[in-house]
């Protein structure tokens, strides 16, 4: 089976890759967004904690 044949998917290429592609995109993006959020939250929380320690 050649690559172009594989991508053609017996004429269903658009539908098969449209489904798998968007699913892959979402399932790769979501963990990245969750990771970014964690970094942002950690930054914010440690700033608040440091500020409180300075006040004390």
């Amino acid at each position, binding site marked *: 089976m050649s690559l172009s044949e594989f991508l053609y998917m017996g004429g269903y290429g658009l539908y098969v890759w449209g489904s*798998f592609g968007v699913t892959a995109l979402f399932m790769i993006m979501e963990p990245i967004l969750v990771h970014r959020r964690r970094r942002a939250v950690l930054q914010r929380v440690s700033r608040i904690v440091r500020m409180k320690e300075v006040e004390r």
Partner: protein
Amino acid sequence: MNSRLINWFKFSSPATYYPLAGRLVPLFSVIALVLIGVGLYMSFFIAPTDYKQGEGYRIIFVHVPAAWMSMFIYVVMAVWSGLGLVFNTRLSAMMAKALAPTGAMFAFLALWTGAFWGKPMWGAWWVWDARLTSELILLFLYIGFIALQGAIDDPRRADRAGAILALVGVVNIPIIYFSVKWWNTLHQGASVSITKGSSMGQVMLWTMLIMTLGFWAYSIAVSLARVRSIILERERDTTWVSELPEVRG
């Protein structure tokens, strides 16, 4: 006292749950990667061409797992919400909140892949069929839950309102599941049923189950990772958070 009895309430404390979730995230990420990797390989190279739908049927290997997960996550979210209302534990609402975006994503993906399957097979991206409509309502319930929680400033009130919405919306789950039986739908009936077993080929069934387990592990990993951020935000005034190495560092 029986030492085998686990004190589940111990884990309902955010201070205990936070490190536990941190250990489970990499474990479930690896399980998800392996299962989805194997599942994708089987989807394209092992599963045979369908005699009726040709290669187009391969959409089933993402469509069905996404649809199942969208319903399953909603039920888990409703259970956490119910526990939160009954026991008044802070963690339950945080878990419900952490699950909602992943559930919404799977509901959207079920509709999206369904559209890309419907177009070549039925000739339409969308029909107002009972199965499709009830799944669309599920997506709206997820969005409603997220919006409602975001709109209320007081976290305790936001949690309660969200929990009630999640519990009321759970009636939609059996409606989605049985819609293909109760109404005359364009959507095909269940290929896998608890009472009748499977009407699919063994290889196709296994591929679908492996993909579903992979999506399940993915959902656990992502929601546990997300709940850790939610815990940090909500518990930022506590001593245990201020003593965490990642906060100090």
